[in-house]
């Protein structure tokens, strides 16, 4: 296949043009232009599919990539040179990501035409969503951190607008502000990281960064007393923390559920929050060079476990899903940290699919019953059969039940974490990471099934709501997207075998295609690559070579032979443990919410429950203490100081001094120089009055104090 500009650019440009056209003429188009948005993203999907099939279908070459650059602007003049290039970079990971984003986005667009149909701002929703999709695709296609940052912020803007979509609600304003500002904290660090890398490498191109790492440019570089690689890696990872809602910046994601449900599915489950993980995968060599992997693993583990515990006590359908999203993102980040590059990315993809489906199912429920508090639902299985099927499959997937996608990816992350934390020979303290991971997996199974049981099983708790629920029928834009997504929650799509282990092959020779296609970039292979101009037509001729020949030509050496035995052992233990844990969690939920034979533990651990209900007081701390008690009073003080003290005394006071001086000189002029001036006395009196007026407060004792202090200071001055 030829990789000319015409084959790649439409992926990004179609939704963008849909955005532009809908923004200006959306109201005049039939159906407010929704068909345009759906069509645009579908065209993107077709183009992405072509690229994906080409990358995945031809001979496996893990490190082949398409990289085209064009000059954005050039500041070179005189003896100075400075250029900023932009470009497109597609490798196997990018191709898979493109397919996932466009596929999920297409289905969500389709679903939105049903879900949002009665909304007065139907057209505007599609404007934002189109812009968002194009930004996300732009991010995936980006070849450098700067354009990643640009699209990253654009997504942040879309997220802000969509969270604040129902702007009549005061709470929507709060939530959107919180979301934007919290991610902005991470983004600011990200920008700093970009600047730091730019200073060393001369650009922020991925290829250049990898090459610089391979050439050892980062070695020995210091900034502000710490290693540059650590500094830059940390800053970039802060971007991930903000965008992917990792501890301690996780507070915004639950509030982001104020937005319409399809936008939660698209932005706050499948794509934007996953972009953070995508970024840390792209910059993985930097994280390794900066020795940040342990830190990343720890952050991920804390987030995975902490968010799972909070999800236990949520009663809002979307809030459970929001916390489970945070938790699952924590698993991905943990995967990055423990070096489980492939599995982390696989989890990103599988999670995007099943979490999008979960949100859409939740949207389907909310649209049908107009209620999202779980205690008021129940027994909806019969009324919403298709939604039930979709949601059940996804829940099984997220809970880590074998044969489903979530099992495959999460089990691999946990297996790698187990190896990393226990068998890899580092300090035993890092065993905390797999422990938190497994504990979180148990909780995940439990709270997801709690949600299922409360919503679909048992007896309806609120008959009014139940009776008003419409019977569900198959419709191309309400539940067909759900069912399509449901198909992809099965595990074999991703690992080629039914179980994720080595038996039950489905794809024949292409088994484990995912594992072969995606692996951490080997930086030494990027040294000395030349850039291709944007207009060049690229064909994958090199990649068409048989793998062995290609590897021979390029000096490819397979993955570093690690402790194969230890890895194998860890994975076996991990897999068995995962299965038991998943079923254990499900069984516990069953006992509590169906059988009722085990009482919920909320009363037993009431203090703990209160902390969970308050989300460990993070929101209270950030908003109540840092902002309300810290920032705002400080700002008020500063503003008061600026106008009330600095301006009033230093500037206007200076003016007053001047005025006195002017008067004095006038007095001097009138009375002393111009001694004949008869009204000199008057001026003198005026002057006297003026001085009096300045100091006169009317409080005689104040004068005493001033008098005495002046006298004392005078004495001290002349006496010492």
């Amino acid at each position, binding site marked *: 296949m030829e990789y000319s500009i015409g084959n790649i650019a439409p992926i990004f440009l179609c939704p963008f043009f849909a955005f532009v056209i809908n923004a200006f003429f959306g109201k005049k188009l039939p159906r407010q232009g929704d068909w345009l948005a759906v069509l645009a993203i579908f065209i993107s999907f077709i183009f992405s599919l072509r690229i994906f099939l080409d990358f995945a279908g031809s001979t496996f070459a893990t490190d082949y990539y398409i990289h085209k650059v064009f000059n954005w602007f050039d500041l070179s003049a005189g003896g100075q040179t400075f250029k900023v290039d932009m470009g497109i970079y597609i490798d196997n990971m990018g191709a898979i990501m493109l397919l996932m984003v466009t596929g999920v986005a297409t289905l969500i667009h389709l679903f939105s035409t049903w879900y949002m149909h009665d909304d007065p701002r139907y057209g505007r929703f599609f404007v934002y969503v189109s812009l968002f999709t194009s930004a996300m695709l732009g991010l995936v296609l980006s070849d450098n951190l700067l354009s990643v940052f640009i699209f990253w912020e654009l997504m942040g803007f879309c997220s802000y607008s969509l969270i604040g979509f129902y702007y009549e609600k005061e709470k929507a304003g709060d939530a959107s502000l919180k979301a934007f500002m919290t991610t902005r904290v991470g983004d600011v660090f990200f920008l700093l990281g970009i600047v730091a890398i730019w200073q060393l490498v001369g650009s922020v191109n991925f290829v250049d960064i990898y090459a610089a790492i391979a050439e050892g440019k980062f070695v020995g570089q210091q900034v502000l007393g710490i290693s540059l690689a650590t500094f830059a890696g940390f800053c970039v990872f802060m971007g991930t923390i903000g965008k992917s809602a990792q501890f301690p910046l996780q507070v915004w994601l639950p509030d982001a559920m104020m937005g319409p449900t399809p936008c939660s599915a698209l932005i706050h489950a499948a794509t934007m929050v996953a972009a953070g993980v995508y970024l840390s995968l792209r910059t993985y060599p930097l994280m390794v060079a900066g020795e940040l992997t342990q830190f990343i693993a720890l952050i991920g583990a804390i987030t995975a476990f902490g968010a799972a515990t909070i999800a236990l006590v949520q009663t809002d359908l979307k809030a459970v899903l929001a916390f489970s999203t945070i938790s699952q993102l924590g698993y991905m980040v943990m995967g990055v940290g423990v070096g489980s590059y492939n599995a982390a990315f696989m989890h990103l993809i599988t999670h995007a699919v099943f979490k999008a489906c979960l949100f859409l199912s939740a949207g389907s429920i909310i649209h049908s019953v107009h209620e999202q508090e779980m205690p008021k639902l129940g027994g909806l299985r019969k009324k919403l059969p298709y939604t039930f099927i979709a949601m059940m499959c996804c829940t099984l997937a997220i809970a880590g039940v074998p044969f489903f996608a979530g099992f495959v990816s999460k089990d691999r992350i946990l297996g790698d974490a187990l190896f990393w934390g226990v068998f890899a020979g580092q300090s035993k303290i890092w065993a905390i990471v797999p422990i938190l991971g497994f504990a979180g997996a148990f909780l995940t199974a439990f709270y997801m099934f709690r949600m299922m049981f409360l919503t679909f099983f048992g007896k309806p708790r609120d008959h009014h709501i139940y009776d008003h629920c419409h019977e569900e029928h198959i419709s191309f834009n309400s539940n067909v997207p759900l069912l399509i997504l449901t198909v992809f929650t099965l595990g074999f799509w991703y690992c080629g075998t039914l179980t994720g282990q080595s038996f039950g092959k489905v794809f024949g020779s292409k088994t484990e295609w995912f594992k072969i296609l995606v692996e951490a970039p080997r930086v030494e292979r990027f040294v000395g690559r030349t850039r291709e101009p944007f207009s060049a037509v690229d064909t994958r001729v090199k990649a068409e070579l048989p793998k062995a020949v290609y590897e021979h030509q390029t000096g490819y050496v397979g993955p570093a032979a690690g402790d194969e035995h230890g890895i194998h052992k860890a994975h076996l233990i991990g897999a068995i443990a995962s299965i038991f844990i998943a079923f254990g969690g499900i069984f516990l939920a069953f006992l509590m919410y169906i059988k009722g034979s085990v009482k919920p533990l909320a009363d037993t651990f009431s203090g703990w429950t209160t902390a969970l209900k308050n989300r460990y007081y993070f929101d209270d701390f950030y908003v109540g203490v840092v902002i309300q008690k810290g920032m705002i009073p400080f700002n008020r003080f500063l503003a008061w100081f600026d106008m009330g003290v600095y301006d009033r005394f230093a500037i206007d006071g200076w003016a007053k001094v001047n005025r006195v001086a002017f008067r004095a000189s006038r007095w001097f002029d009138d009375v002393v120089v111009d001694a004949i001036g008869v009204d000199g006395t008057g001026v003198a009196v005026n002057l006297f009055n003026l001085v009096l007026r300045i100091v006169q407060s009317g409080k005689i*004792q104040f004068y005493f*104090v001033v008098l005495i202090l002046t006298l004392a200071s005078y004495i001290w001055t002349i006496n010492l």
Partner: protein
Amino acid sequence: MISLASYLVISMILFVVGLMVMIARKNIVAILLGIELVLNAAALNFVAYSKFVTNNLDGHIFALFIIVVAAAEAAVGLAIVIRFFQLKETIHIDEATQLRN
């Protein structure tokens, strides 16, 4: 044993106490009391210096004038206080702000 310094110390204490009365009290009469103390401290200094340093009687004369002035001041001051009281029903110093501006 009795030196100039001992008188000066007493006068200093007297002065500072008078000063504090002037500042701390909110009663106009009390402030006048403080002024008397301060004036007396000054007068004492004059007499002491006249004895120890100049060795003539000019300091005494000065002390006498101070007493005269203090008496006049007390008379006028108290008259004002009484008038103020008739006007405002109080002799709180902070009420006396009419001349401001």
